[in-house]
């Protein structure tokens, strides 16, 4: 059986794939899109940073709630995991005590969801950066 029957051949992994496979996801988690930027995917990285960053900042401006680490309600724990995905955005928000006040807007719940989704989208972006680093994706 020839290789042509097995689908597309995988692109060769870059020479420093081992280092990038660790560095790209780590950097990409801290700063959304940075995992793509350090692999010279400038436009993709910029779009990811703009999209995830805007969603998170909009969530904060809509007075969304930021979840802290907790061992209580399962939805609170899932909210924390989602928020955590936003990396530096989440860490800075916690350090500045943003998103912890009393909610005064009816649409603030949308803000909470925006921030959770921003974190979850960043998890996808981190996985994508890893796939690029190991040569599984162009």
């Amino acid at each position, binding site marked *: 059986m020839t290789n042509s029957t097995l689908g597309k051949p995988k692109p060769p992994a870059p020479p420093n794939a081992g280092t990038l496979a660790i560095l790209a996801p780590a950097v990409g988690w801290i700063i959304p899109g940075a995992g793509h930027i350090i692999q010279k995917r400038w436009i993709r990285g910029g779009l990811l940073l703009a999209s995830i960053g*805007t969603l998170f900042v*909009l969530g904060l401006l809509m007075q969304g709630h930021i979840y802290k680490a907790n061992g209580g309600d399962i939805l609170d724990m899932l909210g924390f995991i989602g928020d955590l995905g936003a990396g530096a955005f989440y860490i800075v928000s916690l350090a500045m005590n943003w998103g912890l006040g009393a909610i005064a807007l009816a*649409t603030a719940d949308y803000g909470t969801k*925006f921030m959770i989704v921003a974190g979850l*989208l960043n998890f996808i972006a981190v996985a994508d950066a890893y796939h690029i680093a190991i040569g599984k994706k162009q």
Partner: protein
Amino acid sequence: MTVQLTHFSAALVFALFASIVFGITHRESVRDMVRYGLCCFVMFLGGVLVAGWAMWLVRR
């Protein structure tokens, strides 16, 4: 500073940014990324409109 979005504009913003990330991360070539991103955007907004009308019908 606070921002207040309407229900529809919040859905629009969500659909836009989620579609961009989906397009970039789920496809290989630029052309496929754009097409998939647009498809996701339309599906998100279409879902919102369909769900909205469905709720309107249920309420009647």
